[in-house]
């Protein structure tokens, strides 16, 4: 009898492990195309995924940051402004958790894009980062041309932002944290105001760190 109980427990423990392990891949978001190439005289079909295009912004230290700085990195992108009275403090509070978890990981970055570049100059962003308690090069606060920031938000990260004088603070924007993998593909979007979803993001970054099988995009 006792053996039977232990046996059942053992099976239960095994299946519990299994179900944990089975969730090791994250979806790939965006449009995809089938690309047929001729390789060594044979036609080979490959899937080409949507990726984050080239960009160039400036961070809180005044350094120029481009897509190249993110080559081979996992990163989280969001959109905010320093004088935002609505959802930003909650987003910052949650992003601090992500920062706290990965600030010593060389392969993880956080990119917070200001949607109010007129006010959020480099010194303003630096002061904001300092007051938030953020140092080093894990979390960048970025200033860029307004049209560039808005365009990359909507077309690439699929986050809606717009200027609206009737909204509190003058802008409306969505509080998503967008997870981008080492090949610049969007792998997740999490409500940055929801602590539970942000915990999931923290777990999913770990999943991406472990993901080594995928091939680099040409």
């Amino acid at each position, binding site marked *: 009898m006792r053996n039977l109980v232990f046996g059942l427990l053992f099976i239960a423990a095994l299946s519990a492990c299994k179900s944990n392990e089975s969730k090791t891949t994250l979806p790939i978001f965006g449009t995809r195309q089938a690309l047929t190439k001729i390789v060594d005289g044979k036609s080979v079909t490959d899937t080409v995924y949507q990726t984050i295009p080239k960009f160039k912004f400036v961070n809180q230290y005044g350094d120029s940051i481009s897509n190249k700085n993110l080559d081979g990195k996992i990163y989280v992108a969001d959109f905010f402004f320093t004088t935002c009275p609505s959802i930003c*403090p*909650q987003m*910052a509070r949650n992003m601090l958790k992500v920062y706290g978890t990965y600030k010593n990981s060389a392969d993880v970055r956080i990119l917070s894009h200001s949607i109010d570049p007129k006010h959020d100059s480099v010194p303003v962003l630096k002061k904001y980062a*300092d*007051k938030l308690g953020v140092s080093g090069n894990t979390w960048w606060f970025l200033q860029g041309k307004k049209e560039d920031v808005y365009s990359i938000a909507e077309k690439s990260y699929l986050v809606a932002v717009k200027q609206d004088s009737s909204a509190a603070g003058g802008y409306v924007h969505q509080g998503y944290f967008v997870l981008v993998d080492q090949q610049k593909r969007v792998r997740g979007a999490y409500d940055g105001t929801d602590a539970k979803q942000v915990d999931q993001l923290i777990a999913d970054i770990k999943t991406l760190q472990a993901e080594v099988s995928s091939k680099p995009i040409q």
Partner: protein
Amino acid sequence: MKYSRIFAAISTLSIATLLIVSCESNTSLEFKRYYSEGAEVYQTRCQNCHGNDGAGLSALIPALNDSTFLKKNKSSLACAIRYGMKGAITINGKAYNENMPAAELAPMEIAQVITYMNNSFGNQLGIVNMDEVEADLKNCK
């Protein structure tokens, strides 16, 4: 004669006790109402910035658990909530200097949310009622 005096004494005492008891329960009932309504106001209007635990955000947004500050500035809290706050303040020994936006709340809601704040996050400062808030709002700078 003797009995009636004792009777009078007893009845006065019991009426007084009744009054005290009913007063107390009225106050605590009023407090409970203010506090629970105030919790809702807090969640919808304050929590995003100050956090669900009133802990604030790093050096940007102050915590709401500095009882000494709240006591000292009791009469200007209503104005700060209604019209916003500017300038340097020290909370728990740390300096803050950001703008707090105004919250368009009715005097009753302000009284409720102050009562909630003043009795949450480790504070125990009792009720602030609507009359006090209305009086304080007349003296905003």
